[in-house]
């Protein structure tokens, strides 16, 4: 229940994002039912937006799916981080891994590298409801709402991620990593296909290696001094 409460604000915010997805999807030729089905089955916002924008620009199904895979590739390191905290066999862990979305992954993190899976499931639940519900409102009522850009809805998704980011900037090291990650993405945007800049930015987290070896060395020195 604690996870549900923690996830609820993200569910409401995600519903606003989903609303704009419902509107945009129609412009790409998806029926309202198809847009709702996509949100219910795929449940990955940035991948859905990317696939739809490629279809709208006249791209092929293959190109749309490939781009969606690239945008989703950040879930590879996220899933690898989560895996050791999940019980059960490989298939059961993979099934539990389906519940990961960006906000719930961050909410479930204990801050020591492990994850609380009930906080993960709990915080994903309201986000799923918000995501599918928001898509339905946008897809069915899009004509009444008008142009999503006029309403500023295109700023909602990055603002959502900025709120998530601000949660993570507690210490100096994470601020340095965030700046580096953002910089890597910015440099790659003009050259790399969609999704690659974000995946490449995960390299910035390797700065943790430096810190880890330095701390291990400090511990060794302490032990030597004590001995």
């Amino acid at each position, binding site marked *: 229940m604690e996870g549900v409460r923690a996830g609820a*604000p993200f569910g409401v*915010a995600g519903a606003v994002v989903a609303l704009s997805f419902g509107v945009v999807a129609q412009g790409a*030729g*998806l029926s309202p039912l*198809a847009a709702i089905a*996509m949100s219910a*089955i*795929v*449940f*990955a916002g940035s*991948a859905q937006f990317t*696939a739809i924008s490629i279809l709208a620009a006249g791209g092929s*199904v293959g190109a*749309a799916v490939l781009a*969606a895979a690239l945008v*989703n590739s950040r*879930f590879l390191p*996220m*899933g*690898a*981080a*989560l*895996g*050791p905290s999940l019980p059960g*066999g*490989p298939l059961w862990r*993979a*099934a539990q*891994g389906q519940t990961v979305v*960006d906000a719930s*992954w961050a909410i479930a993190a204990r801050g020591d590298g492990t994850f609380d899976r009930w906080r993960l499931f709990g915080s994903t639940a309201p986000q799923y409801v918000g995501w599918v519900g928001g898509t339905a409102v946008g897809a069915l009522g899009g004509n009444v709402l008008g142009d999503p850009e*006029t*309403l*500023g809805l*295109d*700023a909602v998704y990055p*603002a*959502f*991620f*900025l*709120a*998530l*980011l601000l949660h993570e900037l507690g210490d100096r090291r994470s*601020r340095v990593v*965030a700046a580096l*990650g953002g910089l890597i*993405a*910015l440099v790659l*945007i*003009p050259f790399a296909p969609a999704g690659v*800049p*974000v995946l490449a930015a*995960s390299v*910035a*987290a*390797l700065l*943790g*290696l430096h810190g*880890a070896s330095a701390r*291990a060395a400090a511990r060794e020195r302490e032990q030597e001094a004590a001995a």
Partner: protein
Amino acid sequence: MSTSVAVIAGCAAVTFAIKGAGPMALGGRELPPWFTSVIILLAPALFAALVATQALADGQRLTIGPDTAGVVAGGLVAWKAHSVIGCVVTAAVVTAALRAL
């Protein structure tokens, strides 16, 4: 309609595979400290990149526009008021207002 079905099925398949891969490969064991240190820093790296690609670019073109200002305004609300709902609503309102000028 067949295009829609193919895109939805394709996106669903790759998403299931990607989200399942990490937990499937790594399970229930103690992790080396270096792995943990890197994991903790994945969140700021990935979220910063997501903000950069969405607020400072339009596809492969780097742009600063009303949406950038809206995202900054939303970020101020998130930072000062700790409200994610206030953050996204502010971002939309400020962006819409700037476009209406």
